[in-house]
């Protein structure tokens, strides 16, 4: 069960009306390395992972939903007042024809979200290594979007999200360290 806090994890401000950026940002919404894929991946893996790291997957999976909400807010703000003409110019004509200004789980190229983005191998090490890779890929995706965006306020939020990917990657590495630890061996600190 979850408690919902009616505020964003980090403030989202958008300076310019720039629907084209929304087209790129949707990659983090419904793309293979996006926040939806991340949240579903971790929250699904937690059932079959050793209990020492279940809590970690639960926490990070939950935080990914908070990130998803931030991305949704960005996309919404960037498109809500754009005219059909502006959307067309931004390459969102096909999206408008299908969805109006509604958000849709798809990547920047318009491919709909698919469960095949998410792996669940059942092997704890394989799953955690995938999670580490997913975080690094999400970090890189944020970098490429920041490189294309000249909105300083939006970039501020994107940099926050990018840093969270760095921290999550470290936490998954720590989870691997916990699982490979020789429990019976005496440790001297």
């Amino acid at each position, binding site marked *: 069960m979850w408690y919902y806090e009616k505020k964003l994890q980090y403030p989202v401000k958008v300076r310019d009306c720039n629907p084209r950026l929304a087209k790129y940002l949707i990659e983090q919404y419904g793309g293979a390395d996006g926040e939806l894929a991340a949240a579903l991946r971790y929250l699904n893996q937690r059932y079959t992972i050793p209990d020492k790291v279940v809590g970690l997957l639960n926490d990070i999976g939950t935080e990914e939903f908070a990130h998803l909400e931030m991305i949704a807010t960005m996309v919404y703000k960037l498109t809500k007042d754009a005219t059909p003409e502006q959307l067309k110019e931004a390459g969102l004509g096909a999206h408008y024809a299908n969805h109006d200004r509604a958000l849709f789980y798809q990547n920047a190229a318009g491919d709909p979200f698919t469960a095949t983005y998410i792996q669940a191998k059942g092997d704890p090490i394989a799953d955690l290594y995938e999670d580490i890779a997913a975080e690094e890929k999400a970090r890189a995706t944020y970098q490429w979007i920041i490189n294309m965006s000249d909105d300083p306020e939006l970039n501020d939020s994107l940099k926050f999200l990018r840093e969270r990917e*760095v921290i999550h990657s470290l936490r998954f590495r720590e989870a691997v360290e916990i699982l490979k630890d020789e429990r019976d061996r005496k440790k001297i600190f």
Partner: protein
Amino acid sequence: MFSQFKYWEPYISPFDPCPPIRVKSYSTPPNLYINFQPPGMPQFKTPKQALLHGTLWPDLYSPYPNPAKRGDQLE
């Protein structure tokens, strides 16, 4: 201490169609150099600072874009 960005020089052909980017770089964030966060790492002075950086610990902060970026480099 490690560096947050690494640089490399790709091969430049005399027949490249676009003006060459001589130095390319990529981000190597702190998580690559820490297997397990040690206890008692120093934290940011204020909660607001921590929020703005996205982490409680300055040592885990990864700047982007590269603050030392030069014009001839590509992230």
